[in-house]
């Protein structure tokens, strides 16, 4: 644990050094400012309370969209992986929704529901569900039939089967789709926010991009990334360590 903390610090420092180098080579603070040049902007954004406000707005959307799309996506993925008939029916839908441009779904949601929080969250959720479904479906297809037979013989309830047999086997797939999930959600939230919200990191990033204020773009981007690193270390990795303990024991 100690060693790991140290590695992480060194590794992050390395990344920072890379940034400094790239920035030095670019030699144009308008394109890629040195990291320390962000500090005043960061202080300003924090000081004015803007950063926290927009971060809050974005996180609110991300959390909702994440919970909804993971929940629905896992359920659909399980169903499609388990029941080939169901899969045959909805497989084309999945491909279509998977490849429907985010823009189209977002605009339709806004126009149907209005430019409000519900539409924004729904748009992100709809964009993300097919991704989760696809990943979980693969995982479900790889479930061990022997353990299913065991569960059947001992007549485990649906809940027990999920808890003891299905979810542990899906853990790597769930972890993968949770990690990439947040990333995809976040990419879509940015579009959702610049297309129809007046708050959120995406809104600010787009604004500052249009002003070509790269430094502020980076300040906002890194605030979100910092939160994600925190979640990774405080939630995801401990969870993963716990559920994969049996592999390394």
């Amino acid at each position: 644990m100690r060693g790991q903390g140290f590695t992480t610090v060194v590794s992050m420092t390395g990344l920072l050094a890379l940034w400094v180098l790239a920035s030095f080579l670019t030699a144009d603070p308008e394109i890629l400012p040195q990291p320390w040049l962000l500090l005043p902007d960061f202080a300003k954004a924090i000081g004015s309370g803007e950063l926290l406000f927009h971060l809050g707005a974005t996180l609110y959307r991300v959390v909702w969209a994440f919970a909804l799309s993971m929940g629905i996506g896992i359920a659909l993925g399980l169903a499609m992986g388990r029941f080939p008939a169901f899969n045959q029916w909805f497989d084309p839908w999945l491909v279509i929704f998977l490849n429907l441009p985010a823009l189209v779904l977002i605009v339709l949601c806004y126009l149907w529901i209005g430019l409000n929080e519900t539409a924004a969250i729904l748009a992100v959720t709809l964009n993300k569900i097919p991704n989760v479904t696809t990943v979980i479906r693969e995982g479900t297809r790889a479930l061990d039939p022997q353990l299913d037979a065991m569960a059947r013989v001992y007549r485990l309830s649906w809940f027990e089967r999920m808890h003891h047999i299905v979810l542990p086997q899906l853990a790597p797939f769930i972890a993968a789709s949770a990690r990439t999930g947040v990333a995809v959600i976040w990419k879509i939230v940015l579009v959702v926010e610049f297309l129809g919200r007046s708050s959120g990191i995406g809104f600010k990033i787009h604004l500052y991009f249009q002003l070509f204020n790269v430094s502020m773009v980076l300040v906002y981007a890194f605030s979100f990334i910092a939160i994600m690193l925190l979640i990774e270390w405080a939630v995801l990795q401990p969870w993963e360590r716990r559920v994969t303990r049996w592999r390394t024991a």
Partner: protein
Amino acid sequence: MIRIDLNSKRFGDTPVLGPISFTIAPGETVALVGPSGIGKSTLLRIVAGIDRKIDGRIVRPDGLAMVFQEPTLLPWRSAIDNLRAVHPGLSRETASEALSQVGLAGKEAMFPGQLSLGQQRRLALARAFCGDPELLVMDEPFVSLDAETAETMLALTETLIAHHRPSTLFVTHSRAEAVRLAQRILTLEPGPQGAVLGPEQIRQVRTGTSRPTGVVTAFPKP
């Protein structure tokens, strides 16, 4: 009463089992023997209701316990949780007690991957014995065990059967085991349309209550 009335079982175009009919009375123990690959496990899976793609009819009770040919444990659950996941009513103490009966005392917290194969098989036995099954199905339950451990397991099985009197169907390659536990021995042998039953062997009726002696007492119940 368990009744098997199988016309045939095929995988794709290959017939594996031909017409097979037999019954098992409540409390009766039946051994199934036959060469490797003849279809014993297939028949057991049919009896247990795991394989339903058959041409035939099976009558069987609901309360079932099965020892698979491979341990089939949950690798992500500790030994004790492997019992408790399958028998939700089981208390920690009873589960611990069950583990020590199969010689796994002190290994409660170990994951199956940390156990030797013989230990895993015994864990699978404990799992089957923890319920109160009306039908007990076992696929080579005592292999991969040294003689002494095998003897303990055999004795344990005898006790369980004597106490709860489930109908029991088990596969073995060991004549000694078959003769010791079973009242009847069924043999699978090749037939023109897949394996069929050969002549049945009936063991002498048990002499009195030949309860096993010594360490093994009744298996703990939830």
